[in-house]
C-alpha cells in the first residue's frame, strides 16, 4: 500500500508510532509484576491504541474510498509501516519497557504540545487530547525511572542496561526528512529537531535524580520512517494481524 499525499503520509506515520507502541505495551497484559501495574500499563497501552485510531481514521478520510482505520492497522506489510524503530523493539524486561516509555514520553509530551499549534485543525484536535495523556504517561514513566534507578542494585543495573541499549534509537525521534520539510513549511507538521533540547533536559534531569548515567552519544540507527525495520516488527505484525489475515473482514 503506497501513500502519496504528504499529509496522509504524515498522519499515518504518527498513527504507526502510536499503534506499535500501544501493541508492545499491550503485551504486558496479565504479565506485569503485580495487578495494579498491569492495569496501569494496560491503560497506557489503550491510550496509544486510541491515539492510533484517531490518526488512522483521519488518514482513512483523507484517502477516501474503501480505506478504513483497520486497513492501516491490519492490511499493510512491514515495509509500509513508518513507525520509529524505538517503538517496535521487543518489550524486554520491565526496566526496558519503562525506560523505552520514559524516553518516548519525554519526547511525546513536547511533541503533542507543539502539534496543538498545527495549522491542520484536525491534527491540532487530536494533539490536544493526546497531550493530556502524554502528561500523565511521562509522570508515570519518570516515576518508574526514579524507583528503578534509585531502587535495588538489580533494578538500577537493569535500568542502566536498558538505557544503553535504547540510546541509539533515540536520534530517530528528532530526524527531519523530505516529507517533514514541506509540511513544516506549511505549519502542519512539528519540526522534531526543535524538541531535542527540551527532551534532553527532561532526560538528563530525571536520570540524574534516578542516580542513572546518561549514555554516551553514539551514532543513531534510523530507517523506520522509510519502512526499513528491525526483524522484530514482522513478528509483531504477524501476531497483531493474524485474525484479519486469516479471516479477512472479520467483525467482532
Amino acid at each position: 500500500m503506497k501513500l502519496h499525499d504528504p499529509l496522509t503520509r504524515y498522519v499515518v506515520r504518527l498513527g504507526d508510532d502510536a499503534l506499535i507502541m500501544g501493541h508492545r505495551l499491550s503485551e504486558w497484559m496479565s504479565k506485569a509484576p503485580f495487578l495494579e501495574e498491569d492495569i496501569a500499563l494496560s491503560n497506557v497501552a489503550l491510550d496509544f491504541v486510541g491515539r492510533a485510531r484517531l490518526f488512522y481514521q483521519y488518514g482513512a478520510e483523507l484517502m477516501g474510498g474503501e480505506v478504513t482505520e483497520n486497513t492501516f492497522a491490519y492490511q499493510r506489510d512491514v515495509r509500509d509501516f513508518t513507525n520509529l524503530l524505538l517503538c517496535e523493539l521487543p518489550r524486554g524486561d520491565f526496566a526496558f519497557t519503562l525506560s523505552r516509555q520514559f524516553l518516548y514520553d519525554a519526547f511525546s509530551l513536547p511533541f503533542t504540545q507543539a502539534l496543538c499549534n498545527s495549522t491542520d485543525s484536525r491534527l491540532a484536535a487530536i494533539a490536544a487530547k493526546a497531550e493530556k495523556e502524554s502528561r500523565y504517561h511521562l509522570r508515570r514513566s519518570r516515576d518508574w525511572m526514579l524507583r528503578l534507578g534509585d531502587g535495588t542494585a538489580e533494578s538500577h543495573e537493569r535500568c542502566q542496561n536498558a538505557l544503553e541499549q535504547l540510546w541509539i534509537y533515540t536520534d530517530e525521534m528528532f530526524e527531519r526528512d523530505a516529507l517533514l520539510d514541506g509540511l513544516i513549511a506549511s505549519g502542519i507538521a512539528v519540526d522534531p529537531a526543535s524538541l531535542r533540547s527540551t527532551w534532553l533536559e527532561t532526560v538528563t534531569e530525571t536520570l540524574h535524580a534516578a542516580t542513572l548515567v546518561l549514555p554516551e552519544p553514539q551514532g543513531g540507527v534510523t530507517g523506520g520512517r522509510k519502512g526499513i525495520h528491525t526483524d522484530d516488527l514482522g513478528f509483531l505484525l504477524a501476531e497483531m494481524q493474524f485474525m484479519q489475515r486469516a479471516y479477512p473482514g472479520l467483525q467482532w
Partner: protein
Amino acid sequence: MSDQIQLYEVFIRSSRGLDHKHVGSLHADDAQQALEYARDVYTRRGEGISIWVVASKDITASQESDCDSFYDPLDDKPYRHAAMYELPEGIDSL
C-alpha cells in the same frame, strides 16, 4: 520491590459537594504510587474528581465483637435519630 509493597485503602469523591467514599484497596510501594494506581484502577470511567489513599495499616477498625457494646445501647434512644425528617424535593444528599 514486592517485599516492601503494602496495602492502601482508596476513597474517591465522585463530584463536588459529596463526601469521599471507600471504593476498595490496592497494593503500592508508597502513598504517591498508590494515588497513581488508584487513578488507573478506580477512575477509568470518570468516577472521581478527588482521591484519598490511606495505608491500610493506619486504619483502626472496630471489631465485630464490639457490636454489642458499641451500637445496641443506641437502639432505645430514638430521639437521637434524625429519621423523622423528610428531605425537601430535589435534595438527594445532605
